């Protein structure tokens, strides 16, 4: 299965790249750093969902808190049949279903996203609601590391551990970069894992591009005995897959031009 997922991640990146290049705008860097995580969640039988019934009551809730990672998510949701693949060709066009950041009109998307620091709190509310209603679905939240400079993330962190939300699983896409600079140059996050532990979470750190390690982190999410929420810190590379964008601040929303477009396609082959 791993081989298939590696191949799938490659295809998703290619489609994402072409979708973004057609639109002339997008967030390749932050979308490519979380591609393997999203592919593992959606194709690796981690998330429980029904693409023919996106509002299925028993589905797991996936909250893309770093909603600029939507570019990859849109391609995945189309590929899984949440909506027609033809929607991708209208990405960012007038009247398109698919905006730069997510909104819950889009089948498969749970919340209006885009403003950083909100998703973990909303996910905590959903996880609490599930417990209050006796539901066994899980709530997943993918947050950015730049986003983790928002104070509201840490309000949510305290809340989730205080209320024992062990049905909440968060992933930090630790690509080390915000929009303009490295997080450690702007408002230092390290020691990030220690911070989450100190806030009362179970924490595991993985290579966010290794399917083996991703599955290792998620293998027992439905059966784990801990009373704490789980944070998976995924070490990733912003712009992963396009050599000249990797680990660069400009990968956040700068798109290749001229000869670099062909170089990017070559890299993504």
């Amino acid at each position, binding site marked *: 299965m791993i081989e298939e997922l590696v191949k799938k991640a490659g295809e998703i990146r290619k489609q994402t790249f072409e979708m973004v290049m057609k639109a002339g705008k997008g967030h390749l860097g932050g979308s490519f750093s979380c591609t393997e995580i999203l592919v593992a969640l959606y194709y690796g039988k981690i998330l429980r969902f029904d693409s023919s019934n996106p509002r299925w009551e028993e589905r797991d809730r996936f909250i893309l808190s770093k909603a600029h990672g939507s570019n990859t998510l849109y391609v995945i949701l189309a590929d899984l049949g949440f909506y027609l693949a033809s929607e991708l060709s209208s990405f960012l066009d007038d009247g398109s279903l698919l905006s730069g950041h997510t909104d819950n009109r889009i089948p498969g998307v749970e919340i209006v996203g885009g403003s950083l620091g*909100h998703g973990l709190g909303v996910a905590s509310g959903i996880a609490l609601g599930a417990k209050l209603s006796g539901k066994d679905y899980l709530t997943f939240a993918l947050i950015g590391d730049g986003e983790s400079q928002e104070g509201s993330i840490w309000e949510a962190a305290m809340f989730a551990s205080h209320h024992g939300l062990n049905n909440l699983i968060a992933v930090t896409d630790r690509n080390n970069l915000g929009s303009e600079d490295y997080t450690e140059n702007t408002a230092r996050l390290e020691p990030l894992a220690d911070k989450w532990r100190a806030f009362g979470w179970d924490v595991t750190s993985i290579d966010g591009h290794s399917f083996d390690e991703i599955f290792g982190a998620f293998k027992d999410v439905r059966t784990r005995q801990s009373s704490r929420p789980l944070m998976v810190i995924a070490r990733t590379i912003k712009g992963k897959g396009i050599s000249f964008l990797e680990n660069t601040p400009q990968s956040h929303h700068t798109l290749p031009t001229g000869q670099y477009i062909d170089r990017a396609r070559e890299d993504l082959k």
Partner: protein
Amino acid sequence: MKVYTDTRDATFEELYSIALQNPDVVVLSADTGARIFKEFQRNIPKQFLNVGVSEQNAMSVAAGLALTGKKVFVFGISNFVTLRCYEQIKNDICCMDLPVTVLGMGTGYVYSIDGPTHHITQDISIMRALPGMTIWSPSDYTMVGALVHMAYKSPGPKYIRIDKGPFTPIYDPGKLDFSDGLATVKSGKDLTIVATAIMVTQALKVVEELAIHGVDAGIVDFYRLKPANNRFFLEAVSHSKRIVTLEEHTIAGGLGSIVCEIMADQGTTIPVKRIGIPDNYRLEVGSRAWVQSLDGLDVYGITKTILDWIE
């Protein structure tokens, strides 16, 4: 409904009665208290959470709970459950049209001695800029309790701005329907004072003063600020020679602005005088009545402003 003499009791005793019957109700407090919260904790503990001093997270959690089918009430001091977490209210609650009611305690200069951080004098302006938000500004104890029931029954986001009073009771304790959005409290042939919240009580005293000076003033209680009931409002003031708007709130975007907007949009031309808080912060410390007087919102100041205007 029982007769209340305290807005906090009216709010939360009624909310407790609703929550007892409806397990889908969840109340979040941003570390702000009410006597009956002990009963919530004792009898329906899953339906009440003090989330601590974290208003931003309170709104996001409220949105998450609402997404799972809960009807959520978030309680805190008005300044902190509006301005502090405005973006959470906008993005997490309003953009998804979720059934969350924000209960803001202590509007205007209620917390006069606590300084400008606790004065909330722009909540109407900012909250009405949120599409889909219903804003109630109750003017007596009965209305506060009734609006909690209306908030539970109605969809979408709501904000109830709760004054501590003391209010002069205006409405019959049996009245539960405040769907009109405004009410004529008193008719007057010379001018109409359009007031909201505690300023309706103030207006009752002002009309007595004006009467001494031979001015017959009416009062309209404008208690639902959004969506405004334009038709009822225009009917209520149609025979007025002049309109005075009265609010313990900045005149930038508050009740006075709402009234002027309605009349401008309808092509109604009645002279209007807006009385409210000028464009300033109050660092002065003192009783609410004293701080109000600095802005001309005491009975003497209001009366003088009106008399000066009509002369």
